[in-house]
């Protein structure tokens, strides 16, 4: 991709948008916590409408052992290495949240059938770096950083694992965690020497499931942290309070000159917009507030639970989910202070608005999603985390997860379910599995950073 002389990715977001359409998707699928004693796996999904196996799982790469709980993943290299012709976007790093193992998967030798290249042993990571509970993977020029939510005993705040480009452990990335109580997601803008990190909870708090009462005991996060990226130290905290309970995904605009970014506060079900103001201070405001919805059988209204957000490569649209309500939404963020709701579709959820999509009963609600580089196809999966699924959507154990494609109108706004695409992970050969994060071989809308 890009010019032949160059390394991975694209010279700019505008060039990325023009990349060829994705034909293969990689999504992780789990058996951890489902009762099926099989390893979690990386599924290859055929996304080429002209292929005879379109909308099917065409390959499954099993991990060597059971119990990893694969969750998020990231590339070994992205557009931040575009000038380095010795680098290639070849390996997906796929951590196991529970096992601590980092699986390095070669997707380039045969893109349809990825193969295991290397495993960084979870016990070794614990012993050498005192970290557990891996989450977000970002590359950092030719190196890699991974946020971990706990220390070796699962206590917050954890820290960041630093790997070199051969996937050897360098050590801890951060110089200090300062007084950060919790970790989760992070994103950085090198031109502004800034990284923003968010807060879920300690592994020992969230891995067993969600005890809502623990929010009141301050066991869950409510802050964003601003880092001096070069010095690798946190320098400022944005306390979000009740507006920002459980702030999860952090995304800057793709424009490397911009300081505007967003965070989805899952439990408050709000979007927080942050930016660097003219006086050099970081500011934030709540720009989207999804109301709790009444439920026929619940004594209290249901929160949306906004567990993920995503910004289109042209920085025009923000996508959010409401995992418990069951809707995906598209907002025009041309003015990031004043988002406009331009699209909404329903798939699953607790409110009963769309129990079935394209003939498949949906257990769970919209949860993780990945957008095509041209912004037109949004692939959405339904499982959040095994223990949390088991609490809110127990039927997912027998029905498994699904992957849905939403077609997005990039000119006028709007979303609709694609009638020709559905991947039913309830029908997998080893029994119902649950799909989560998705990536594409050529890069996607949550991978690339420009220096």
């Amino acid at each position, binding site marked *: 991709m890009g010019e032949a002389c160059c390394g991975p990715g694209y010279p700019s977001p505008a060039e990325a948008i023009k990349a060829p359409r994705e034909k293969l998707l990689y999504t992780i699928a789990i058996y951890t916590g489902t009762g099926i004693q099989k390893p979690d796996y990386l599924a290859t999904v055929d996304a080429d409408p002209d292929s005879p196996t379109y909308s099917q799982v065409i390959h499954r790469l099993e991990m060597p052992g059971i*119990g990893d709980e694969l969750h998020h993943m990231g590339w070994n290299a992205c557009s931040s290495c575009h000038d380095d012709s010795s680098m290639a976007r070849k390996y997906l790093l796929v951590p196991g949240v529970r096992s601590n193992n980092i699986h390095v998967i070669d997707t380039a030798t045969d893109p349809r059938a990825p193969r295991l290249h290397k495993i960084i042993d979870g016990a070794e990571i614990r012993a050498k770096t005192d970290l557990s509970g891996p989450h977000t993977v970002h590359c950092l020029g030719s190196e890699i950083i991974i946020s971990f939510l706990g220390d070796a005993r699962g206590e917050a705040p954890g820290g960041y694992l630093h790997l070199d480009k051969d996937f050897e452990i360098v050590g801890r990335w951060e110089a200090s965690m300062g007084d950060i109580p919790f970790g989760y997601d992070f994103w950085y803008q090198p031109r502004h020497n800034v990284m923003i990190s968010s807060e879920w909870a300690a592994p020992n708090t969230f891995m*067993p499931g969600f*005890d809502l009462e623990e929010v009141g005991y301050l066991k869950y996060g409510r802050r964003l942290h601003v880092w001096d990226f070069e010095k690798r130290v946190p320098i400022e905290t944005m306390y979000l309070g009740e507006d920002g309970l459980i702030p999860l995904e952090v995304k800057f605009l793709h424009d490397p000159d911009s300081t505007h970014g967003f965070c989805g506060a899952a439990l408050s079900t709000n979007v927080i917009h942050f930016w660097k103001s003219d006086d050099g201070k970081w500011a934030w405001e709540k720009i989207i507030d999804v109301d709790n919805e009444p439920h026929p059988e619940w004594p209290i209204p249901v929160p949306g639970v906004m567990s993920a957000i995503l910004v289109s490569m042209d920085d025009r649209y923000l996508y959010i989910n409401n995992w418990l309500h069951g809707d995906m939404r598209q907002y025009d963020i041309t003015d990031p202070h004043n988002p406009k709701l331009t699209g909404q579709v329903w798939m699953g959820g607790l409110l009963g608005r769309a129990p079935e999509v394209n003939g498949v009963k949906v257990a769970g609600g919209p949860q993780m999603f990945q957008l095509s580089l041209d912004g037109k196809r949004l692939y959405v999966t339904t499982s959040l985390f095994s223990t949390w699924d088991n609490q809110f959507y127990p039927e997912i154990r027998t029905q498994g997860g699904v992957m849905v494609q939403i077609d997005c109108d990039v000119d006028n706004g709007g979303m609709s379910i694609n009638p020709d695409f559905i991947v039913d992970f309830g029908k997998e050969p080893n029994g119902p599995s649950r799909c989560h994060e998705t990536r594409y071989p050529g890069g996607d809308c949550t991978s690339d950073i420009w220096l």
Partner: protein
Amino acid sequence: MSGTRTITIANRGGAAYSVAERRPLLDTLREQGVDLPYGCRYGGCITCAARLTAGTIDQRRQVALNNRQLANGYVLLCVARPVTDCVLEIGVESHGLLYRNPFLDPLAPHELKPAIARPKEP
């Protein structure tokens, strides 16, 4: 015999295993061919939870179960050592009381995790 305990698995036809008293049940039962789920292996994630219906377990290293789950007999096999002979139900078939919807079924203050629970009101 000193140093060993007998573990009976009720939902595997009452199969009985002789295990070392000082080692975690996840290890000693898997070594004898019992297929058990697990994740973190340090008592932090409940993937390996089983239900104790008779006997006494030492699981002082567990950090993931709340007091309601403990009162319902759940044990984390990766850190559970048998103090006496025990009867267990294993696997997700035993997880009926392990998961709850926290919005519909709140925990009382004495049912929180041991580190933050308050004593039960008389």
